[in-house]
């Protein structure tokens, strides 16, 4: 099953909004007049060019989806990085750079479109979806959750986000809105350093038991999307296998390099 997605190509992007996302990250809203749209979960390449023609290219996940020409990114500053500190600290509204995309046809999810017949539970219909993110790995999963909400898709979807502290959560207000708006979408957090006031759960490195307690059980055969650092993805994916999930139903995206 290969999802239909728009063809990729080079486009000029202009920054139309730039706002702090977390203490180390920034949200950029781009206007890309020639953008062909993108599916939820896809990424793009950003290419920035210095006055002497030197270029640097990096891949970033897209937090938005659909046919529009507004593209939302959220970029975490990698200490010692070459491109991310520029995008987080230097770029201003009105600046332009090039983007190549949309990219990736595997780590994507398509909602049931409005008007599309919803198969009954006994049919071989859409599978429940479990999303699991470590830190900035939530970005492509925000696109998936938002697409689910915008389509009023009744498919059960849950998102587990592991963050260091409440301030490190990307798109937390948007995700809370989605959770309030749809009974089919549920949002869970895990905190590794410090939890919000009133939190009664575990605080510390994510454990297999925590994952087991909140994710859609293997018996319900969910599609699972895991995104984060290589270490996070390796740990979580191996726990999911131990908990009985089908390896073929687990899609992963790992952040790496600078």
């Amino acid at each position, binding site marked *: 099953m290969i999802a239909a997605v728009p063809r990729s190509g080079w486009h000029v992007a202009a920054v139309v909004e730039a706002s702090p996302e977390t203490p180390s990250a920034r949200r950029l809203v781009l206007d890309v007049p020639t953008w062909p749209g993108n599916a939820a979960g896809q990424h793009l390449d950003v290419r*920035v060019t210095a006055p002497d023609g*030197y270029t640097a290219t990096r891949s970033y996940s897209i937090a938005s989806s659909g046919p529009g020409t507004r593209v939302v990114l959220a970029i975490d500053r990698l200490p010692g990085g070459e491109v991310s500190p*520029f995008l987080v600290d230097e770029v201003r509204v009105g*600046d332009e750079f*090039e983007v190549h995309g949309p990219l990736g046809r*595997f780590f994507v999810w398509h909602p049931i479109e409005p008007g599309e017949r919803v198969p009954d539970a006994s049919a071989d219909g859409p599978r429940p979806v479990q999303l699991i993110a470590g830190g900035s790995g939530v970005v492509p999963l925000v696109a998936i959750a938002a697409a689910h909400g915008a389509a009023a898709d009744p498919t059960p979807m849950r998102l587990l986000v592991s963050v260091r502290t409440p301030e490190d959560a990307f798109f937390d207000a948007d995700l809370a809105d989605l959770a309030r708006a749809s009974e089919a979408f549920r949002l869970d957090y895990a905190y590794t350093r410090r939890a919000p006031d009133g939190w009664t759960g575990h605080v510390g490195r994510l454990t297999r038991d925590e994952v087991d307690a909140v994710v859609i059980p293997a018996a319900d055969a969910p599609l699972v999307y895991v995104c984060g650092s290589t270490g996070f993805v390796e740990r979580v994916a191996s726990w999911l296998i131990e908990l009985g999930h089908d390896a073929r139903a687990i899609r992963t995206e790992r952040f790496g*390099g600078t």
Partner: protein
Amino acid sequence: MSFVTRGFTGRGRDRDDRLPPGQTLARDFPVLSAGPTPEVDTDEWEFTIRTESGVEHTWDWQGLLDAGVEEVETDIHCVTHWSKLGTAWRGVPLDALFEEVETDAGYVMAHSYGGYTTNLPLEEVLDGQAWIAIDYDGEPLDPEHGGPARLLVPHLYFWKSAKWVRGLVLMEDDQPGFWEQYGYHNHGDPWREERYW
């Protein structure tokens, strides 16, 4: 259509001419995988070459080692824009395994434990261009980097160097593998930036 991005100066001026266009040197070893890392024990590991007429040639772990392990020093290039220069591997050249294989096929599909596939022209995995790699940097290859054994085809983007490789199926006609179906280029030459289709 490149143009200057206001405020960007960049740092990588001392560009190495071993670095293909659009690539950046990586100090660590990033991981690109579509799913969980399979666990494969060398006691159960097998590697099979199946020809277009259905003849199968199979090696177990010791049989692979007996085919002749050699040192390989090479640059590697990932489609996600990182490269590593002068990486040190040990592996068995595919030429050694193909010595006893009779074929007129033009292409191979590499198959992996876990279900991953990738397609390659046969002539690009012979003549000292490809290995079954078992060690990286003096250590047995980590599972997350494809251990116990991965394909090593360093002149193409690294998704062609299938991790957890378990066999090659010879094909008379080319067919896209896993990432090739999901948007990566059919061939994948980093010097031509054959990244996506």
